């Protein structure tokens, strides 16, 4: 584990050291770029506030992700079962993805106010796509011969879905979910940034207005860390759900 990650740990350490040095010799004025140690200090000082806001952001992210994945699941199943729906809505799905979320977020605020609703809608929009596409690709990649075999055993469509299509789509589903998990945090922050009463996005706008760049960096790192933690959680679920992957042949 340590051996495998050694190069990346080393790279990060070198980068942080270089950054600290740049600040030490004041290559960049301190009010523009805080040093890593200052960022750490800011993080410590503002920890209660960061924690409180994180909880708000996480709550939005979880609700949004849950709804997004549920809707994605329903959509993918319907689109897979009915080819006409697939043909009709697949291009539309792609188009929703070309709209930048920063562009719709203010509209959502306008329509739904400063509460949680517009934030959750934005997260649903951005997490829905990778999961739907992953599931659809997974469903469509099922082996025709295996479908034939199950049919010869008298399997119904529901059987084929349950025993074949769904488990076969799990790997793609989890790839989609991993991306969606990261999007959910980013989505929450962006929509808070554009209007809200709490959350890391709101915290960011406040420290930005105060020109507190050390706090700004602290929150940036915190958001990355939360995204990474969520992705790790998805990976853990993936390993639990698919124990048959990465088996060793011997035993």
């Amino acid at each position, binding site marked *: 584990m340590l051996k495998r990650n050694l190069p990346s740990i080393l790279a990060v350490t070198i980068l942080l050291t270089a950054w600290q040095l740049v600040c030490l010799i004041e290559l960049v004025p301190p009010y523009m770029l805080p040093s890593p140690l200052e960022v750490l200090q800011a993080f410590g000082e503002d920890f209660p506030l960061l924690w409180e806001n994180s909880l708000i952001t996480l709550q939005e992210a979880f609700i949004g992700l849950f709804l997004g994945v549920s809707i994605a699941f329903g959509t993918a199943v319907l689109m897979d079962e009915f080819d006409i729906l697939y043909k009709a809505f697949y291009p539309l799905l792609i188009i929703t993805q070309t709209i930048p979320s920063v562009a719709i977020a203010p509209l959502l605020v306008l329509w739904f106010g400063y509460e949680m609703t517009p934030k959750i809608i934005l997260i649903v929009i951005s997490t829905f796509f990778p999961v739907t596409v992953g599931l659809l690709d997974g469903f469509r990649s099922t082996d025709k011969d295996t479908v*034939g*075999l*199950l*049919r*010869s*055993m008298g399997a119904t469509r529901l059987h084929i879905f349950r025993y*074949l299509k769904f488990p076969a789509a*799990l790997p793609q589903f989890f790839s989609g979910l991993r991306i969606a998990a990261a999007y959910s945090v980013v989505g929450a922050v962006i929509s808070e940034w554009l209007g809200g009463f709490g959350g890391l996005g709101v915290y960011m706008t406040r420290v930005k207005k105060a020109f507190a760049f050390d706090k700004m960096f602290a929150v940036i790192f915190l958001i990355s860390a939360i995204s990474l933690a969520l992705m790790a959680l998805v990976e853990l679920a993936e390993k639990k759900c698919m124990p*048959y992957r990465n088996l060793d*042949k011997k035993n």
Partner: protein
Amino acid sequence: MMKKLEVKNICKSFDGKPVLQNISLELSQGELVCLLGISGGGKTTLFNIISGLLSPDQGSIFLDGKDITNKPGQISYMLQKDLLLPYRTIEDNIALPLLLKGIKKKEARLQASAMFAQFGLEGTQKKYPAQLSGGMRQRAALLRTYMFSQNVALLDEPFSALDTLTKSAIHKWYLAMMEKIQLSTLFITHDIDEAILLSDRIYLLSGSPGEIVEEIIIKEPKPRREDFNLTPEFLAYKRQILSLL
């Protein structure tokens, strides 16, 4: 004797091109019958029709005297690849046909497990297909086929993907197995030796369109001698088949 399976005058064309021409054949209880012919001769199409996955242009299929044309779920069918589901343990793969019949999971597992020893699969219950050798996977696929129905089995080139040594070992195992379970089996192969070695009867199929050109009865009693494939009788059958193909 009552015929287990009867195939009567099956014809099938794809886009106006005849693939099967007036195929009639039969299978008695406990018999092992082989369809031998070149690849692409419509043999798999015939199996798809017998199993009910495909409808014939003409003709009917009877199982124990009942018409089962176009009715899937009556006969067990094993395809060329083992098609074990990689995300289910061997035990759960084998229990699958029972689950599809509506049997509860616990009971299905119990019934499946009871057969493991007989098929030489003991100890593989909790393993995944990827952890098994090709020969073992084929055994597991065969057991799954057997779990579905002890009536009639269709095997489409069941051993063709195996290497020669594994194949020869599995042939011995298979013959011994069939002595015990007496499963009426119709199987496809393009391997002449395999056909003579395993079958009670062989139907020779010509290619495009597929038509039965000859029926050969292998008179060698069962269980077969250890070195049957090295005897003059074996070679005589082989010569006869080669002259007809």
